């Protein structure tokens, strides 16, 4: 069955719309959520970075301030200005023992000549220097404090110089000298290292405006002779007007990062804390979110598909049932249609099913009517055919009968004429023979007597032949009489001239059926059979005669113990003019057949070569009047 256009299944279409309607908004929302998440992560990172930067700027400030205060307190105490050099040296040594970050301390006279020098790595009696033109010396004298002068101790470790004026509390406006200290800044790197471990994402640094790296979370970035921060970053930081800030950065080499800075809250210092973090972290996060979202969407697709399959299956089940029912009706199977219909469904499909049911019932009725009409038509056709067949057979039989009768009538007419015409000469010969015989009297030549006998015998023979032909061809009315068959046969057998070499065995049925027969003809028929039987047993033999009932028939059975007949001639023996004898009309058994036909009976023969022949005459049993 080639369907030109296969319609899609309703459930699949429903599934498609389910997916579209449920997943499209989900996708859009997910997209926006990812964007928002990306932004908020960026903001969060930035604000954290800024807070950290500001916090560390404070730390740096406190760290530096500690040493500044130590120096200021030392220089400001009453005794220090009046101490001897030796005492001052002892005092300074004690300070250095307490504060390990202080590498060197010097006492300079107001004229700039170094008066005392204490250092961790100094030889004994170190060289005294002149500082009257150094910036820090002048600044300390004029402004009361100097912080700065970054350099790398031994070319590696960042240090700074702090200088304060030494004053006499009694005359504070006239400094008596300058106390200068070189402070190691390695502590800051250690703190940054602890705050921003190398395994972390962020890195932090403290830089001077010229890019000098004061501290870095990674010591390798600090402890080298030319440790400088990326000029581009330094430029960005130094061009900022705010004390602190931050934002996404895109460097010329393509690096994208989040950067935050905070200046040290000390007017004497122009250092900045800078914290940076590669931007890919936020991207990785949003990518991970995206991945997770995709997984969720896929999972939802799966769940929705399953649910949609069930739901659409549930929704379309009645429709499919209707389709199955329609298929059944299409095949003419009305019996189980009602069981298939979703009649209990309480929506439009249920109404449709009810309509469908009504239609199915109506169709069934109409189909049944059609089938019945067809059956009746067929029966009627068969009836007509049978009638036509029967009528045809009747006509054929009637025609056969007519032909047979006409033929018999013609034969009879001819036989009558011929018989009559031959019987006259036979009668004349008979008369003349009788005359001669009488005239000759008793004294006659035995040969003449013999020939006279031959003539008389031949006349008898010829007359017998004529009689047979006339018997067969005559058209007389049947004159049936209801008779006791046994009595009829007893009479017949009793009157029959059996030759002495024949033994008769008779056995008549005890029921002694009544039959309606024409005595003359029936006698002739039975005598013909008996005559034949005796003729085939010329020397000795047994002639059997018995009767028995077989259904509505009584059978007269005549058997002989003669040579029997070959099967091929059994079919022919009842035909007219068929004979196996040297002399014979071939009418004896034809007469038998004719007589039995006229009695609505039948004759059958059974023969076995070397054993004998059995004739059975079937005569209808007379119905009691």
């Amino acid at each position, binding site marked *: 069955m080639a369907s030109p256009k296969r319609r899609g299944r309703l459930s699949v279409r429903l599934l498609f719309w389910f997916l579209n309607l449920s997943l499209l908004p989900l996708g859009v929302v997910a997209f926006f959520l990812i964007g928002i998440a990306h932004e908020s992560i960026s903001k969060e990172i930035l604000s954290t970075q800024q807070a950290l930067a500001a916090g560390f700027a404070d730390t740096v400030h406190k760290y530096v301030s500690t040493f500044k205060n130590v120096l200021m307190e030392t220089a400001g105490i009453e005794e220090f200005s009046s101490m001897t050099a030796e005492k001052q040296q002892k005092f300074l040594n004690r300070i250095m023992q307490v504060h390990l970050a202080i590498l060197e301390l010097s006492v300079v006279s107001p004229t700039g000549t170094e008066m005392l020098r204490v250092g961790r790595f100094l030889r004994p009696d170190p060289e005294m220097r002149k500082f009257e033109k150094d910036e820090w010396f002048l600044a300390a004298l004029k402004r009361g404090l100097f912080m700065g002068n970054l350099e790398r101790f031994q070319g590696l470790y960042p240090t700074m110089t702090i200088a304060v004026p030494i004053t006499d509390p009694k005359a504070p406006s006239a400094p008596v000298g300058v106390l200068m200290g070189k402070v190691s800044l390695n502590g800051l790197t250690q703190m940054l290292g602890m705050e921003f471990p190398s395994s972390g994402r962020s890195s932090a640094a403290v830089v001077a405006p010229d890019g000098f790296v004061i501290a870095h979370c990674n010591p390798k970035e600090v402890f080298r002779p030319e440790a400088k921060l990326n000029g581009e970053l330094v430029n960005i930081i130094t061009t900022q007007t705010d004390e602190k800030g931050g934002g996404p950065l895109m460097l010329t080499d393509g690096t994208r990062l989040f950067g935050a800075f905070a200046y040290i809250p000390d007017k004497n210092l122009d250092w900045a804390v800078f914290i940076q973090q590669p931007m890919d972290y936020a991207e990785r996060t949003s990518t991970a979110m995206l991945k997770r979202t995709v997984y969720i969407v896929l999972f939802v697709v799966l769940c929705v598909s399953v649910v949609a399959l069930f739901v659409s299956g549930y929704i379309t089940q009645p429709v499919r049932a209707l389709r199955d029912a329609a298929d059944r009706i299409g095949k003419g199977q009305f019996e189980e249609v009602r069981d298939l219909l979703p009649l209990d469904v309480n929506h439009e499909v249920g109404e449709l099913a009810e309509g469908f049911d009504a239609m199915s019932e109506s169709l069934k009725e109409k189909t049944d009517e059609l089938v019945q009409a067809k059956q009746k038509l067929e029966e009627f056709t068969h009836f007509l055919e049978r009638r036509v067949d029967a009528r045809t057979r009747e006509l054929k039989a009637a025609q056969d009968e007519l032909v047979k009768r006409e033929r018999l009538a013609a034969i009879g007419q001819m036989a009558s004429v011929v018989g*009559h015409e031959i*019987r006259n000469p036979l009668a004349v010969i008979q008369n003349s023979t009788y005359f001669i015989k009488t005239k000759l009297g008793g004294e006659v030549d035995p040969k003449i007597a013999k020939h006279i006998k031959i003539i008389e015998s031949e006349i008898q023979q010829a007359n017998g032949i004529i009689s047979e032909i006339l018997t067969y061809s005559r058209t007389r009315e049947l004159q049936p009489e209801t008779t006791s068959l046994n009595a009829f046969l007893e009479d017949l057998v009793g009157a029959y001239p059996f030759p002495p070499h024949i033994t008769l065995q008779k056995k008549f049925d005890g029921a002694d059926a009544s039959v309606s027969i024409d005595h003359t003809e029936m006698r002739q028929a039975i005598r013909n059979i008996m005559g034949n039987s005796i003729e085939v047993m010329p020397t000795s033999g047994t002639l059997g005669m018995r009767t028995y009932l077989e259904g509505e028939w009584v059978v007269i059975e005549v058997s002989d113990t003669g040579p029997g007949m070959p099967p091929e001639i059994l079919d022919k023996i009842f035909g007219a003019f068929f004979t196996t004898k040297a002399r014979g009309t071939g009418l004896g058994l034809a007469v038998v057949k004719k007589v039995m036909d006229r009695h609505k009976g039948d004759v059958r023969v059974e023969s076995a070569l070397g054993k004998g022949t059995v004739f059975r005459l079937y005569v209808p049993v007379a119905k009691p009047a």
Partner: protein
Amino acid sequence: MPSPNKLLIIDDDAHLRESLAEVLELEGFECHQAGTAQSGIDAAIKLSPDAVIMDIQLPDSSGFQICSTLRKRSKETILIMMTGRFLSSEEKKQGFELGADEYITKPFDLTELTVRLRQLLSRNR
């Protein structure tokens, strides 16, 4: 010796007629012959035979016709019908009603015929 019985034989076959007559004359009957129905009736009227043996089938009429005519004239005369063919019971019955006494079928057993003739004739006496 009584006078011989007078017989009339009517048949169109001259040979049959003559041979039968001569046989019966041998048996002591006085035989007369006729070849047609008409001549037979004429002869019967003239001769008044004791018995008439006639063929049923004659050129000018039937034996039954003669039988009927003769029986009307005489109740005594023996009337014997000859035939070469089968007669149905109806025909025989009709013949007897017309007055026939006996039927004989050609060719006939002459001994039997003679005996039968004598029987019939002696009954009339």
